């Protein structure tokens, strides 16, 4: 690998068959295992450090501040002890809150990815989930007993996300419209739809006396529809039981992808749609299902946010939210595997909270740091996309050891 310029090494044959993004990533993953994603993350953080340096702060202090803001010091302060409520505990629960959401939006990208589709519409699917979740939770009165009400709300929010993504799935399956463009358009349609719902005079704007001009919805909490608290102080955005929904989703993702016919078909279409079709798998059906299931995860992310700790939604929340886009970085860094998505969700949860609310403004300006976290996401995505470079190096090394496994198959 240290032998200098590319030109001197014997040229590769055309890159081994995979034509779809999912297929290529799969090969890259086989080639590098866990090493490339970790290197990718480290490299992205190093670049972020350069940016901090350029803006005149000390990157090490800033990163330590971000770590502390994310409550990572909880691990050495109170590991295993959930009774102490102090700043590090609070920050840590906030990190987990965000990781819960990101795990679900990450799955929303990952599932479609395994089918060779790039769902960058997680944001819109999440937004539709928020609208439906708020509507069910705060505007259905006490039509249902509160326990059932939460469950129905979660399910319907998930369905809303699934339907929204399903539109892109149907368009992909029937006329072949590229999901990247359609999902982005659906994001913006959802954005304006939600802005209308929660906005001035909108159908879901709050009914509280004296708040007629505030563009925010009623609270599901006040209606008694919410997910109970697991850890922390109920009045202070504590961690709720929704984290188990995220964990269950990760497990379900693993099982469906690896242990069911549906998962097999989805992966087959992801590697090579033509070959899958030749093998008798309906590509169209799987395109639609993969998108709908992806949307389901994004809708669930909205449900755990609304019923777990946000309780209401406003126009400003809709505008500021980027959880769907974080999901892209989470899925790519996590290589669209269940465990990878879980870990990456934790990393980005920590980064998100650590760079915004949790960050001590004395150390580094949180408004700057918030954008820094966006940049790091971008860099992670950039380098993950580029790890064919790593595959290339890996392939060379394998060739040198004359192992035919990777290069010999399916070429």
């Amino acid at each position: 690998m240290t032998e200098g310029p590319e030109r001197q090494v014997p040229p590769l044959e055309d890159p081994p068959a995979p034509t779809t993004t999912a297929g290529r990533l799969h090969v890259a993953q086989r080639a590098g295992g866990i090493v490339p994603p970790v290197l990718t993350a480290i490299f992205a953080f190093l670049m972020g450090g350069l940016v901090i340096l350029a803006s005149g702060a000390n990157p090490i202090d800033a990163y330590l501040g971000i770590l502390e803001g994310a409550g990572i010091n909880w691990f050495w302060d109170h590991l295993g002890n959930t009774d102490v409520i102090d700043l590090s505990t609070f920050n840590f629960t906030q990190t987990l809150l965000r990781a819960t959401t990101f795990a679900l939006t990450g799955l929303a990208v990952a599932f479609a990815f395994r089918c060779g589709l790039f769902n960058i519409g997680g944001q819109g699917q999440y937004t539709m989930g928020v609208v439906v979740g708020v509507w069910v939770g705060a505007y259905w009165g006490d039509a249902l007993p509160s326990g059932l009400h939460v469950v129905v709300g979660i399910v319907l929010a998930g369905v809303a996300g699934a339907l929204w993504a399903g539109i892109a799935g149907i368009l992909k399956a029937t006329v072949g419209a590229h999901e990247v463009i359609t999902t982005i358009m659906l994001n913006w349609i959802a954005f304006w739809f939600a802005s209308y719902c929660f906005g001035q005079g909108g159908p879901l704007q709050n009914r509280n006396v004296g708040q007629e001009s505030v563009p925010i919805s009623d609270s599901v909490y006040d209606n008694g529809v919410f997910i109970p608290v697991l850890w922390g102080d109920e009045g202070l955005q504590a961690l709720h039981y929704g984290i188990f929904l995220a964990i269950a989703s990760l497990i379900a993702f693993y099982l469906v992808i690896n242990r069911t016919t549906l998962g097999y078909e989805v992966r087959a279409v992801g590697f090579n749609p033509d070959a899958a079709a030749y093998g008798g798998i309906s590509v169209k059906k799987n395109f639609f299902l993969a998108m709908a299931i992806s949307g389901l995860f994004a809708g669930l992310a909205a449900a755990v946010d609304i019923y777990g700790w946000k309780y209401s939604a406003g126009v400003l929340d809709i505008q500021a939210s980027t959880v769907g886009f974080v999901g892209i970085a989470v899925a790519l860094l996590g290589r669209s595997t269940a465990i990878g998505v879980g870990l990456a969700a934790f990393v980005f949860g920590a980064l998100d909270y650590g760079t915004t609310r949790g960050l001590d403004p004395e150390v580094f300006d949180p408004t700057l740091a918030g954008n820094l976290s966006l940049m790091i996401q971008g860099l992670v995505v950039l380098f993950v996309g580029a790890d064919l470079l790593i595959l290339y190096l890996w392939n060379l090394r394998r060739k040198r050891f004359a192992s035919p496994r990777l290069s010999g198959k399916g070429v």
Partner: protein
Amino acid sequence: MTSLAENVGVSLVTPKRVGIAGIVAGMVAFWVALPPIHVRNVVVPVVLAALAVAAGVYATRAHEVRVGWGAIVIGFLGLGGAYLATRSNMESLEIVFTWSTLIASMFVFACPLMFAAVGGIFSERSGVVNIGLEGMMLMGAFWAIWGADRTGNWVTGVLVGMAAGGLLGVLHAFFSVHLRADQIIGGTAINLLAIGVTGYAFVQFYGTENIPAGVSQIPRLQMRFLEEIPIVGDFLYGAFGRLSVMIWIGFIVVIVAHVVLFKTPLGLRLRSTGEHPRAADTVGISVYGMRYFGVTLSGVLAGAGGAFLSVGVISSFNENMTAGRGFIALAAVIAGNWRPFGSFFFACLFGFSTALAFRLGDAYRDSVAGLDVLAQMLPYVLTLIIVAGVIGKSIPPAAAGKPYTKQ
């Protein structure tokens, strides 16, 4: 109109033409209810729309499915629009459908799309899919207003914006061409990066305040002589007489792009690397060089489009102000079949829908609560429909999205 097309000699009437005539009839159904014709009776639009739907059904039966369904959908949409128009008060209608203002406004919204779409064509024709147009526009938007603010001159501002877009273009080219990274993922990364970089720089340079007022703005090109023209003078002046300089540059860019792509050796080489890179390589064309050129140029042009948004329209910057326009431009590229004039047409269509959305919101804000917000969906819905409708008809460059390995 439809009846004409349907009754003319047999040889002229193909199912496809009937379908197209149906589409036209559907549009006319709406149009007659608008100023200046103002048909207040709903019967005329109903007849026209019925003709459109009938033509659509006929075309669908004759296996012209796409055109046929287009006519049916547009027939119903035309009928709905016309019905609403006849029910609306005249004043609001006049506000929305002052055609000269509407067209001028259309060009304002179409201009950034034109630049970005032409950029997208160069990138994709060279064989690199550019999802990152959005981010390149955003970079252009921020750095242009920064440049204009620092130098006090819009020209340098726009140039700085173009350079910033071009820089992201070079980055995208490096990852797509040399590192052979996945181009869709790379483009998404470019978009995320651009949001982060512009947001960071915005806070760093301007803190909590916004861009100061009075930044040098792109001037309008005043063409008073248009008013002198009899009858249509007022309309022409209203529509074309006060357009921004940048819009006229945009028109020129579209024409030049067409000439370069289809009439010069450079364009032939660029297209060949996008269609069959190995063949191009064999005859001595530098595939990497052409792709770097195409992608970088797309960044520069998208940057110019973004610059128009900030320095040309609102003289300010908001985080993520491009609001999906890069993707709409990409849709215009696809719908326009990777040709400058085709994309120009769709850029104008999307611009028109945005202009319409704003005017609808203005005119009916008091009578229909929240319409001004809901109307904002219009360009995105239209893009969705058009992307769904044209795919399959338009053929992308054969090698777009596929990395090339030099032999």
